[in-house]
Every structure is written in structure tokens, then in C-alpha cells.
């Protein structure tokens, strides 16, 4: 049946997929999507603990609210940056954006 390790394994796999997206994708927008999945995995962890280990801890639920807001903020700033890089460099490919690497 459903128990805490099951939920955590689901979250771990989701985290792995997100990490693959962040490391493997060439486009900045796809990297942002990878980060979204990793944050989603973190939330799944917290909800898993909420359900099985700490029933009455409302601060856990509150932490998920903060994570939800964080997802939205991260995407917003990410797109702001993508727009300005696209306007200056005409591309959003992360491989081309290596000016700082000296």
C-alpha cells in the first residue's frame, strides 16, 4: 500500500528527471522547467511527510505554500532574464551565453 518510502521514491525519481533537464538541456527556458520539476519533487517530499509522519504540523503545509511561491518567482525572474538575453544576443541557447567564462 502507500507508505512514506513509496512517496519519497516517487519524489526522488522526479528530482532525478528535473536534474537531467537542468544539466542536459541547451535552452535556458528548458533549464527553468527542470528547476520547476526539482521544486515539485521537494514539495512531494514535504506532503509525504505531512501525510505519514507529522499529521498536525501546519508549518509543513505552510512550507509547501512558500515553495509554491518560490516556483512562481523563479520562473518569473528566469523569463525576465531570457527576454533580456534574447534581445541582446538574439539567442537563448546556454552554450552561446558564455561571456563571463573568460
Amino acid at each position, binding site marked *: 500500500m502507500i507508505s512514506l518510502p513509496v512517496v519519497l521514491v516517487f519524489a526522488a525519481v522526479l528530482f532525478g528527471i528535473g536534474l537531467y533537464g537542468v544539466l542536459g538541456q541547451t535552452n535556458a527556458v528548458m533549464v527553468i522547467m527542470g528547476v520547476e520539476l526539482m521544486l515539485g519533487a521537494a514539495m512531494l517530499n514535504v506532503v509525504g511527510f505531512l501525510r505519514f509522519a507529522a499529521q498536525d504540523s501546519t508549518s509543513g503545509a505552510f512550507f509547501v505554500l512558500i515553495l509554491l511561491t518560490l516556483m512562481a518567482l523563479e520562473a518569473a525572474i528566469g523569463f525576465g532574464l531570457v*527576454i533580456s538575453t*534574447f*534581445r541582446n544576443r*538574439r*539567442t537563448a*541557447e546556454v552554450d552561446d551565453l558564455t561571456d563571463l567564462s573568460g
Partner: protein
Amino acid sequence: MVLSTRPRAALIVPDELSWTVWGTDPAERGLTPASAPEYARGLLVPEVVPAALAGPLVAALARVPQRPLVIADSGPNVTGSHVAELLGRSAQGSGDHHDSQHDHGDHGEHGHDMMAIVGDPSADGLVMEPVELELGPLSSSLPGGLIASLRLDGDLVVSCELRSTLVTGNGRGAVDPLAPVAWAVAATVATELADGTHPAPATAWRRIAAVELERAVSHLAWLRSVGRLLGWDQLVACAQRTLQPLLEARRDAGLAATPRGPGAGADARDLAVAAKRAGKLTGLLEGSRLAARARGRGRLASGTAPAGPNGRAAGALRDARDDDPFYRALGFEPVGGHEGDVEARVLVRAREAVASVALVTDALARAAAGRGWSEGPGFASPAGAAVEGPRGPVLASSPGAGAAPLVVAPGAAATAAAAAAAATDQEWSVALLTLVSFDLSGWQVPG
């Protein structure tokens, strides 16, 4: 009140306005124009389909899901293929449907380097790929036969070209199917001027009534198509209710392009009803709802004032009826606006329709009373005959001695150019409304 059943969405070739001008209104046959071939359950088509519309019609029929109810009627005399042959071709060719609009997701197919998108930055400084779009000759909100090839940046129209694909009859005896009465009257008056004969006063008044009735019907049918484009069902219903008595009056008074003999006096009652409803329609249009969509949009470039209602809406009050003794006797003064935007063009045509209905009533009364006017035939101008058609002046000159008169409608090309210019650099819905607001014609009008 008696409720009629729901009209059937149909593919109307070339478009609804043409059928209303030619004779019977599609609404009387229970048909409304379908906004896309997928929605069409019926087909209203002239027996001889013009060549330019044959291909698009077969393509559209391929996208129609069920066997449509086909209504074929006599259309303008143009060269083209017979409708039965087209239906046959579409039935057996319905397997592979090919679309007139090349619309298969043509993003990123323009062959330039995929990684860096080149081009000049659009208004917000971002370089985006333009979309080429061709608004086809059929089932688009533009008049039938008119093709607009547009280039879009997002939903901003960057460039627009218009071309009419339908060809009127041969040179000399040409008749513009969207203004048949005006062209016929111009030709007859030109021959009379050349021969120096005089029509009887009654026929002169009936000619004026016929020209004005055709203008009123054309303007109201156009207002109905603007209502459909705006998605304003109330305007469509109001225009439809105003059109009905006018079409009845046209049949009774025998003024239709295909007259069925004059009826006795029944038209006076219809005209009175039509006048009242036209007044209500103008009141509806003068409200703030049309202004919300039309005020300040599609403004004509200063200096370009095409002939006809579009020019009058921009302040150039030129009208072929000004210096005509018959019209002066009827107490006619030209209707105009000064903004030159979409709202002005809509209001000018609505007010002209109201004025035309009044002129028709008055002219028919004088024709019945037989009151004559000595000073020569109507529609006379120094260079021959000049009739103000629904889309601008129609000039006719005849070399005399039985040769067919040359009838010309100057300014059609200028209007199309002004429309294309007014529609560029506008958001999509504004650009389309601007194009429709010029009441263009899908037929290549000679001259």
C-alpha cells in the same frame, strides 16, 4: 411573435451580400454564412461558378463534413465551370483534402538559419518570425473573390496586399454584379444622351427609385456583414429586419435586377416600415458600442480621399447626385463625415441607407403622380451619364449610333489601395475590421 427555426450554416459562394443584391436574400432560404467550411451544412452557389472560385470551392467542399444541402441559382453571366461538375470533382476527390490557405503550422519553415533568427526587431525590440497568411476568396469575412495576403508579426499586421480575383463580363458590355442596376441605368442614359431622346418623366423617377433602392439594399447587407464580423448579433438581426421589407418592396415595385412585374401600392407600406426600422438601426449605431470598436481605427491617410462613401466619410463631399435636377427636386443633400475612420464609414452608409429609402418613397410617389420635369433626363453630366452607385460614381459614355456604351467605375483601385494602407500596422481584429469597413468588391471593376 412567431419564431422561425434556426437557419442552417452554409457555404455561400461568393458571399451573402452578392445574393441579397442579386435577388433573394440567403436568410429567406434559411441559410446563414458559415464562418468555416467545417461548420457548413449547406451550399448556396451560382449555377456557373466563376473560374477563380472553382479551385477554392472544391478545397472548401473537401473540408465540409456532411453532404451539404446544395441550392444552385442563376448568378451573374461569367465564364466558369458548372456547379454540378465541381460537386462531382469534390465528391471523388474528398479523400485528400488540400487547403486553400496554406496553414500547416508554417513556423520556422522559411529556410533561414534556425539558430539565430534574423530580421529587424518588431515594436517591442524582439526579432520574431513573421507569419504569411492568405485570407482566401471563400468563407472569409472579406467580400467573396477578394484575396488579402497578409504578413503578421504575432497578431500585428505588418503588410497587406489586396487583389480581386473575379472578372466581370467582357470589356464593353461589362456589368459589375454587385451594382447591376446602377450600371444598367448608366448605360441606358448614356445611349439616350447620345441619341438625344428623352425618357418619360415616370420612367426617369422609377430609374432614380431603382438606383436608390439598390444602394439601400447594398448598404444594409454590408452593415449586416459588419455585424457578423463584430460578433454583434443585435446589429445583424436589426439589419436583417430592415432588409426584409425593402426586398419585398423591390419585388412589388418591379425594381429588382430581375423584375417580376410591378405590384400595386403594396411597396408604400413596406417602405414606411423599412424607413422606421432603418432609423432605429442608425440610432443603434450612433451609440457607444460601435464607438468602442470603431472610433479612431483604420483612419484614412490624410490626403487620400477615394471616391464614393469612403471618401465622403473622410470629408470629401463629392457625390455624382449633387448637380442633378431630379435629385434637387427630391431635396437631396450628400451625407458625409469628417473623421475618415471605421465609425464614420459605418455611420455614413447607415445614414445614406435611411436617405435612400426616403428618396425611393418620394420618387415612386412622383412616378405614380406622373409629375414631369422638363430639363432633360436624370443622371446627365457633361461627359455622358454619371450614376452614384453604392461603391462610388459609375460613368458611362457612348460614341452614339448604336455602339455599346463604355461604362467605367473609377476609383475602385484607389479604394483598395487606401484600404490596404489603412490596415497595415494594426492589430489583427482592427486590421480586418478596417478592410471590411471599405465595402470593397471581389469583382475586378474595369476602369
